[in-house]
């Protein structure tokens, strides 16, 4: 019991880091759902592509020797921006090619198109990386400045990069909140989410707003991909699957379509996972190891959804106040 208490702060911090990562990915699901009311299952691949863009840039910097000479903060900035831009463009292309032609079709058709796009992107990355680097299991080069352990109080030690994940996520979440609620473009997106027909009558270019939503969601996913790569080092074309599934769950848990809900859902899921992972083995005397963490986390999710079927903060869908 003494041990259980002493490790609690570290568990909570780790859970938060994980939770912010889920939250960033969950935003992509929730924004698209808010506008089109369908789940973009290829979003996990946008996340994965973000991670690959990050590793490619870092590997190129490494082979040209800039990785050690340039300021790490500057490198990170470049990698994040490039990852966001390119992933955003991938999401944009996805919308244009895989979803827009099917907008009038039943929603299940778009869902199948999303799954197809997801397979396509996985294998595309595999093909490109196989030809280019002769391997599609890639390792993020280590930036030593980010690996240094930092002690926050006596009980908590995290590497600099964990702080970086949280800080980047916070900046982007506030930025997104500002964009959606305080700018004309954001207002237009909300108008389309509430009622596309009326919005179009008001002179809002609906298609462009939908595309913009995909771009912004994709950029968030791409940033999460870069952060994931920096934090966990090893990536492959199927890396997106598990975090994507969990982020989708986080979006549903928070209330799909609801931006604040996605963040809350991500944090709750991250914390549940960290708590379960660290304590299950201790509480059950080794009968259930750390790998039952997902079982436990998802069991709690089911419980929450039984009592709050519309998620913690409620769904935001058409013709409800945004």
């Amino acid at each position, binding site marked *: 019991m003494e*041990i259980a208490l002493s490790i609690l702060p*570290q568990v909570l911090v780790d859970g938060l880091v994980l939770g912010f990562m889920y939250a960033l990915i969950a935003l992509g699901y929730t924004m698209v759902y808010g506008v089109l009311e369908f789940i973009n299952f290829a979003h996990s691949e946008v996340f994965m592509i973000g991670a690959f863009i990050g590793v490619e840039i870092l590997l190129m910097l490494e082979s040209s020797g800039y990785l050690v000479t340039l300021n790490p903060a500057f490198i990170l900035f470049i990698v994040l921006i490039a990852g966001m831009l390119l992933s955003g463009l991938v999401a944009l292309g996805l919308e244009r090619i895989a979803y827009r032609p099917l907008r009038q079709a039943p929603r299940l058709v778009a869902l199948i198109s999303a799954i197809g796009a997801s397979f396509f992107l996985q*294998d595309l990355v595999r093909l490109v990386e196989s030809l280019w680097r002769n391997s599609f299991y890639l390792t993020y080069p280590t930036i030593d400045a980010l*690996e240094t352990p930092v002690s926050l109080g006596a009980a908590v030690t995290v590497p600099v990069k964990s702080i970086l994940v949280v800080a980047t996520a916070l900046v982007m979440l506030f930025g997104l909140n500002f964009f959606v609620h305080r700018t004309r473009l954001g207002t237009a997106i909300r108008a389309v989410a509430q009622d596309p027909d009326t919005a179009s009558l008001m002179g809002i270019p609906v298609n462009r707003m939908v595309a913009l939503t995909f771009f912004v969601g994709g950029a968030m996913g791409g940033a999460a991909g870069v952060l994931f790569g920096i934090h966990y*080092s090893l990536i492959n074309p*199927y890396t997106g699957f598990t975090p994507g599934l969990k982020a989708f769950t986080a979006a549903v848990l928070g209330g799909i379509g609801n931006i604040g809900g996605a963040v809350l859902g991500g944090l709750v899921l991250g914390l549940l996972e*960290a708590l379960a992972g660290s304590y299950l*083995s201790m509480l059950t005397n080794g009968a259930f190891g750390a*790998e039952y963490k997902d079982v436990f986390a998802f069991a709690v999710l089911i419980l929450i959804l039984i009592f709050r079927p519309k998620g913690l903060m409620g769904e935001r869908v058409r013709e409800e106040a945004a």
Partner: protein
Amino acid sequence: MTSRTSALLSVLFALLLFNGPTAAWAQRKTIKVATQSPLSGEQAALGEHIKLGAQLAVEEAAQRFRPLGFDLILVPYDDQAKPEVGVANARNIVADPDILLVVGHFNSGVGLPASEIYKDYNLAMISPANTNPLITDRGYPNVNRVCGRDDVQGPVGARLAARDLKLKSVYIIHDKTLYGQGIADTFRHEAEALGLRISGYEGTEERANFAPLIIPLKAKNPDLVYFGGIYYQGALLLKQMREKGVKSIFLGPDGLDSSEMVKIAGAHVIGAYYTTVAGPIDAYPASAQFAKAFKSRFGKDAESFGMYGYDAAAVGLKAIEQAIQESKGNRPTRAQVSAAIRKIKNFKGVTGSISFDAKGDPEKAKYFVLRFDQKQYPGKVVKVVEQESPKARKP
């Protein structure tokens, strides 16, 4: 995903095969040597060297085989480190009557089921890297290896911890595979016998976030963390441990014997120990010439498993030559080749003198303990143990 991968590979592979022998060769007799190792996927870096080592041996021996009337060809198979792929390949291999020798596998979990198939056809298999005791303890007449065994390698690690480093407690983590858990258990057994306290024992298939494992580990504050498994988990575990301020000494088996350890763990790799059955190239007196030939043929530096791949193929080819003589210049049967391998005494390999005991283990094998002193692979050899393979135990 797996089925698509294998479908793609099998198409590529079919293309390779059909491009192979041309009409001119068809009149001469052909002997093929198959390799089975992971050529794609996370362990491709290690599996590739096994293939290249065997290729070098085959190309050198081809000159000796031509006057005997045989063309010697290497056919590489990719087992993807997956048992089902290895077994499917094995069925294709036994169906090709020209194949008289298999060099493989890398993973014990793949080598074990695949060798069941070779056994039905008495096709000789020489493993450069399968360290699980069961591989040879089944007593099959066709299954051999040129490397050491986990039930020696694990205890070598335990003795290092207890006697040389004088540690008192150990936390054991393994990857739940035949190889990883197997060696973790042999380590644990010896460690307990030597009086080390086992402060934790966990299995994990995690690939990214080891925090849930590390936090309870840190609270126990063990002197040593032993990881039974492969580098892509081990290096991440090590890195995340250090990032969370865990100072325990880190030790693992030959699954960590890869340059990827340094790439993944970065500076955190410094101070970590690993045991291996395949020491670095310069730890062997006879290896300089091999390293040179390897470099000039393939344009990259040889790694230790390349050397074992070379030796496995070379000793097998020697046996095939003797079997050809016994059968008066005709193509020997698979059973003759398997029998000839066991008769070989003191074959001068790159890794040392090779003779097999009655169950297919090398009579003596070397075990190495290395430590990463710098951010570079391989680590520095701190100890070399040469030990006889244990007698067969009932599995």
